């Protein structure tokens, strides 16, 4: 099953890593290198899933983009997976508060990323996978 996936990540080497990880899965991949661009693409593209880096420079960070997606009724089917180097409980709590569907901590395993993405794409609406 092909899905529209948006990758929002400021570090090029990580962006490429995610891209390479998911390209074999046959998904339709889109890229953004900051939160502001990411949010504009989300609104236009209405992706099935967004992989969001939390700490990004610029007008919007990952948590803010996540909140906007979750507040927008038109994006009810869009899943959000946060991707961050900050793995402490307070950071996870902040992610939950922003309404993310899953949380991956850097460094992450590409195989685990694939599993997480699959799980999100196949989960029934409203069910969240942690």
């Amino acid at each position, binding site marked *: 099953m092909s899905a529209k996936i948006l990758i929002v990540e*400021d570090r090029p*080497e990580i962006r490429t890593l995610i891209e*390479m990880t998911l390209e074999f899965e046959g998904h339709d991949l889109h890229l953004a290198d900051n939160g502001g661009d990411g949010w504009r693409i989300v609104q236009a593209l209405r992706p099935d899933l967004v992989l969001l880096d939390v700490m990004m420079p610029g007008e919007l960070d990952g948590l803010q983009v996540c909140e906007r997606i979750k507040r927008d009724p038109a994006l009810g089917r869009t899943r959000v997976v946060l991707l961050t*180097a900050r793995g402490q409980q307070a950071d996870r709590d902040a992610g939950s508060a922003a309404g993310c569907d899953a949380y991956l901590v850097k*460094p992450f395993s590409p195989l685990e990323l694939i599993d997480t993405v699959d799980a999100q794409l196949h989960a029934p609406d409203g069910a969240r996978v942690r």
Partner: protein
Amino acid sequence: MPGTRLGGTDEPVRDGAPAPATSAILDLMPDAVVALDADARIVLCNRSATTVFGISPEQALGVQMSELVPALGVGGIARLMADAIVVGGGRIRIGRVQTDGLRRGGTGFPLEASIAESHAIDGARWTCVVRDLTEQRQADATLSLFQQAVDGSSSGIVITSARLPGQPITYVNRAFTAITGYAPHEVVGRGCGFLQRDDRAQPGIDALRAAIREARDCTVTLRNYRRDGTLFWNELRIAPVRDPDGEVRHYIGVQTDVTERVQAAREIELRNARFDAVLSLSPDGFVLFDADDRLVFVNPALCAMTGATQHDLLGLAREEFEALLRSLARPDSLAATDAPHAPPTARTPHETRRMTLVRPRHCVLDCTERTHAGARGETVLCFRDVTRESEIDRMKSEFLTTAAHELRTPLASVFGYAELLISREVDPPKRQRMLQTIHSQAKLLSTMIDDLLDLAKIEARRERELKVYPVPVGLLVDGAIEALAALEGPRPIEVEVASREIEVAVDPDRSRQAITHVLSNACRFSAPNSPIRMLVRAGTDPDAGHVIVTVVDRGIGMTPEQRARAFERFYRADPSGHSPGTGLGLSITKEIVEMQGGRIALRSAPGLGTEVDLLFPRAEPTMRLPDAP
């Protein structure tokens, strides 16, 4: 005493009544006068004899004198006369004896008898004057008791004459000798001043003189000197002794050796002074509450912490003081402990609570309480300013969190690409790109770890490790450019050095590292072909003591916001990863330069480029290379 006969002492006694006038005089005498015949029988007595012996004149006549005074029989009188003195041209002998008499009824009493012997035709005649010594003996006993008391007193007692010039000592007791070492014969007849020797300028002496002038009591403490020259503190009380007319005849001085007491008091005074000094110099704040929970002591450090004066604080009740603290504290900083609201007895003795004051300035205080310090139920509160410690704690934990986060990002590439290469078939060109990324990110990790360790070393402020000596600035510049080439690849740097020989007093390795960091930034944030210049010149007033190294680039520059955060750790002006820095370079540079007594300054504008000044202290002309490298 009518009808009695009288015997005179200096005229021969004759039979027959004495002349009435003589009889009347005899009757007025307080002593008993008795005339005895040759057999020592009473032939005549005066009125006092009746009271002394308790016998009437009629009963006395013819009585043997030995019945009244056993020692005065004929034989006793004869023995007495053997030692008598002779007066009246040899006609009269006078003897004297102290012995016991008998009152009628047989009660004994002490008496003194003077006996005059004269000779008549029919033999010796005796006239006795008998004095009852009972009262005198009692007075003597009392006096002796007083004497013993005075002699036995542990206080030195001195009696001086008020009438003789210089008020000489007339008596000292044994304790005086024990205290001063002077025997009575060495001091009787001298004025008391010798006890002070040359140490005359004492307030006590003036007080003593004034008291003597006004003839009143007084107590003073004097520095006195013993016979062997050692000092002792003499608490001297003097009192005038007046005669019945009110005139001062003597002074009695009672002296107590209070050397130990004075020394103990001095010791306490000294300790108090030391404690005061310690407490007033202490950076810790102290308050002391007495048993009634009133503030009785506060040191300057606490005044500074609270912004209150001693005058404001002294006398405050404990609750008022706590209320003052609450008014200065950030409300939530007191929430952790409800102790201030608890009654004093409910407080644990060594409880430490932390509070954050927001007025008069921000500070974090640890307050330790010690209740019932000493036996008087006092409470001591000690406030330690831990603002710096708590700030450092906070910064350290923030730093570690950030550092861990920063290390995870390159690690994510290493980990992720490696896993992809293991789990997938990848075509060779892609595979090569992935390996290159792994390599470059691993290199970045390594650099970051080096920087972190550098920073940790510098943080520890082990300035002993700085090897500071005079170095010509030209050498530093050359070294930095060399290091830059190894780091960033070949890149031309225009160098303008006013004088390569000016010496700076720095640690050359560290300073070279600082210059390299700045040059490296200039390379990264400017286009490969844009010029980078380095200017070296001696500072002018107010930087006359420094040499200024300026690095100028025509790169992307910084916004005011970026400029403000430039020295923050892990702050990267370009986080995209295009300029692979650690975000630690400038903060390390700043630490190095400031640790050596220099300074860093930064000017920048977006699109125009950046200029960084590094100021290094000039070497003193007297500085020389250390003997050993």
